[in-house]
């Protein structure tokens, strides 16, 4: 038990966290510079899995990608550090909880650990997003021509579509253009039809898949080409719910942390003004 406790203490120490955060900062800034030299290597990360990308682009261009590999390693270590630190601190805090009567103080005490916990959730979300799942791009659908939902036998078809024309008078460049579009998609599985609507920035969801409208045509009511098509990005990934949950918990933690800092800052400032 002592050994486990000692291991948690070392791997979850604040000093280790500071070194890791400093190193990650350096690596990201270095990566930003490398990215400006050659970003073509990194764009496939949008549609390839992380391991697939590392095995191909990553290992074939180590002079440009080494920082990314170091970044992944450091993030894994930071995940372990955050997990160990959170467990260690929470055990200590819960043992003191009986002596703290104010619920507000208890919540404020937990604020940094809520952020730490959500950081772990976010990292798991990002990891599963890049390591697992189905990501398919450029699924072009036209009215009357059906497609197949990737990895299934579900038939996918455009049933109806609507385009929103820019209604303002101010911007000359926008006049007549379609600033948004909606496509009603029908999914037919074993004869059972379900209709969902997807649009720009508003994906639809069907049996664990998210269907995003990446592009569409016609782009303008005044344009030469009137052919209607929708370019869909289709994803199935467990990482997204984790990512969204992580975001919500992190933002809650951040607000609590800011509130606790404002409260304790007021008291400290008063004390120190008196001393000064």
């Amino acid at each position: 038990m002592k050994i486990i406790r000692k291991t948690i203490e070392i791997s979850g120490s604040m000093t280790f966290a500071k070194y890791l955060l400093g190193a990650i900062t350096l690596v990201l800034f270095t990566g930003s510079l490398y990215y400006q030299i050659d970003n073509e290597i990194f764009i496939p990360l949008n549609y390839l899995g992380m391991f697939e990308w590392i095995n191909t682009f990553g290992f074939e261009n180590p002079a440009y990608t080494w920082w990314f590999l170091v970044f992944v390693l450091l993030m894994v270590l930071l995940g372990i550090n955050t997990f160990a630190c959170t467990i260690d601190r929470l055990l200590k805090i819960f043992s003191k909880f009986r002596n703290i009567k104010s619920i507000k103080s208890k919540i404020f005490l937990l604020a940094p650990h809520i952020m730490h916990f959500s950081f772990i959730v976010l990292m798991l979300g990002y990891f599963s997003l890049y390591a697992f799942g189905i990501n398919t791009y450029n699924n072009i659908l036209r009215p009357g021509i059906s497609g197949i939902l990737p990895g299934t036998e579900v038939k996918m078809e455009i049933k109806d579509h609507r385009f929103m024309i820019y209604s303002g008078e101010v911007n000359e460049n926008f006049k007549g253009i379609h600033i948004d579009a909606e496509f009603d998609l029908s999914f037919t599985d074993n004869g059972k039809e379900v209709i969902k609507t997807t649009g720009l920035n508003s994906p639809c969801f069907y049996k664990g898949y998210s269907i995003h409208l990446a592009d569409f045509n016609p782009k303008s009511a005044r344009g030469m080409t009137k052919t209607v098509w929708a370019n869909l990005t289709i994803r199935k990934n467990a990482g997204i719910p984790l990512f969204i949950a992580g975001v919500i918990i992190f933002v809650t933690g951040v607000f609590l942390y800011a509130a606790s800092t404002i409260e304790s800052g007021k008291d400290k400032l008063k004390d120190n003004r008196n001393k000064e």
Partner: protein
Amino acid sequence: MSFIKDYFFTVFIVGGGLYTLSAISAAVRFKKIRNILFSAGTAAILFSLLLRIYYYHPLMCLFQEPYIISFFTGIMTVFLFLASRNSGLFVYTGTITLILTLFLIFMPGDIYVSFRQTNSLFAHVYSFFSSFARACYLCAGAIAVRCIIKYREADTLRFSDNSIIANIIIAGYCLHSIGMFSGGLWSYAGWGTPVQWQSHIFLGMAGVWFFYSWFLHVKLSVNNRKPVLTYAALAGGILTFIFSYLPDTGKFNIPGIFQ
């Protein structure tokens, strides 16, 4: 109505001019005139920003963040002065506002027709919060310069000096987190992934976020009077400028009204 496009940059230049006059007033110690000119400059920048947003609505103007940052550093300068009545703070945060505004007048980001995915609440939230956060970091860096000069003269740091820096950075970190995650949600809704590997800007933003995560951990373990926090805030301001401000600006260009 297309005249609006010609006006929003001109109004921004007027704001920069008012800031310059305010700096001259500060140099000759006309404090009231300095304050009035600076406030008028911030109002002009806000007006320019509102025209820009109105012109592009419901889409979002690309590369608008540096303009929002100029506004927020101006607002923070006024706010800090009203809250503390400290001219020292006014001079340093006002100077960074003037530098950023003049920098942007001569190196504006290119304005393209926005892409349709900017028609999203998350995009606007990302732009607003991440700009406010960057303004906080840059102001904290400017105040750190003042503290370092004072520290070298007096060989001691007042608790309240570092405390102001830390509080501004904490506020910036909260805003940055909300902005960054809002950007992630926008990216997911628009393209199906929370990270878009198209531009190096997000690497710079993430680097700055991790830098301030490091700062907050250092703050927990050292006394608030220690100069390490002041130097770290200055380094943070410089890193913010290089990695999350410069990428949104353009090449050197003399504005039309000066030609």
